[in-house]
């Protein structure tokens, strides 16, 4: 039986009277990359917010490593190794790259180790270590956001719209990094609107439309049905 790191059953969540997630079932095996695809407004970001503990679910169960974690505080989840790289990167525009990495030392890791790891993985950040993040390009900011998340040594990494606003070449470079991170054994949930690039690194893909998972399968299976899934033809 596949060891599941994250399991979601009949998950519902919303904002006040507006229900966004309408009964989501999702399973993330340990060490796998799961892509959650869907059009704008499908509920992808809401799903990650609920998983990270930022938004309480209204119904359903979230299990991490076999334990039900509904109601867990987001900072507790982050401390144990669940890392969310949010949509829009979530970096501090007035702090330098080095200062961003210094912030991660709260986890107990030495700054020198964090910097060595980060600059080896992202040489471009080494060149920009003293540069203020707000003046960097979108791709570099995304690298910084990813580096900051990886510096916490997550067991489960959640990426929200990694490709947002970036040129295709940069997106390819970033997803090559995601593949490398996945190869090191980190379980990854990646949410994307633009499917083609992420399907190249995913082990499993799910399509989320109007708050429901309408298709789940291997990337090859999903890629063929993507148009109909997005446009609702797969919804019976």
């Amino acid at each position, binding site marked *: 039986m596949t060891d599941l790191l994250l399991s979601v059953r009949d998950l519902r969540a919303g904002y006040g009277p507006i229900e966004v997630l309408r009964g989501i079932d999702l399973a993330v095996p340990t060490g796998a990359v799961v892509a959650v695809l869907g059009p704008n407004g499908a509920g992808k970001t809401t799903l990650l917010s609920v998983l990270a503990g930022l938004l309480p679910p209204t119904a359903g169960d979230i299990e991490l*490593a076999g334990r039900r974690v*509904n109601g867990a505080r987001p900072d*507790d989840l982050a401390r144990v*190794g669940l890392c969310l790289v949010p949509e829009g990167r979530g970096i501090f525009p007035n702090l330098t790259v080095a200062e961003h990495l210094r912030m991660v030392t709260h986890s107990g890791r030495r700054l020198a180790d964090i910097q060595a*790891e980060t600059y080896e993985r992202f040489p471009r950040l080494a060149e920009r270590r003293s540069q203020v993040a707000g003046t960097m390009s979108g791709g570099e900011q995304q690298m910084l956001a990813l580096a900051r998340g990886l510096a916490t040594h997550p067991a489960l990494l959640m990426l929200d719209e990694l490709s947002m606003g970036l040129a295709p070449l940069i997106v390819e470079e970033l997803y090559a990094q995601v593949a490398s991170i996945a190869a090191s054994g980190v379980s990854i949930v990646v949410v994307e609107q633009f499917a083609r690039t992420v399907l190249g690194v995913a082990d499993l893909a799910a399509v989320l439309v109007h708050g429901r998972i309408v298709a789940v399968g291997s990337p090859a299976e999903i890629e063929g049905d993507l148009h109909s899934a997005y446009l609702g033809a797969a919804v019976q």
Partner: protein
Amino acid sequence: MQGQPDRIEQFKADIAELHITDPSASRDNLSTRLGVAGMAVGVLLGVYAYTLSFGATGDNPAPQQRDAIVLALIGVAVAVAGAALYLKGALAGFLRFWLVRDLHERRAQTDRVVEALSGGAEGLENEQP
């Protein structure tokens, strides 16, 4: 640097030790506290209504006394509502544990019956020529 399998095991251990507040338990606690507050407020309203009535003076104390009666009735209503809320919160926790214990004992009983039947069936098979 920690290998990833070690990291996963560490993650599982940390998750197992994570303290998670049960949202339903906090609602029951709130219900209990509001109930106690309601009962206390109800009693105080009743006492205040008595002093109001007792202090009614003048040629026509009736209006003030009527006000005191209304206030006393409101106090009774608030105290009863508070008592109901308190009982709801107090019983919910008790019934939750009772249900879990009942389920556990029924499962244990079923396991004992199955084991006994399996043992009986094997005995019969062994006795047959």
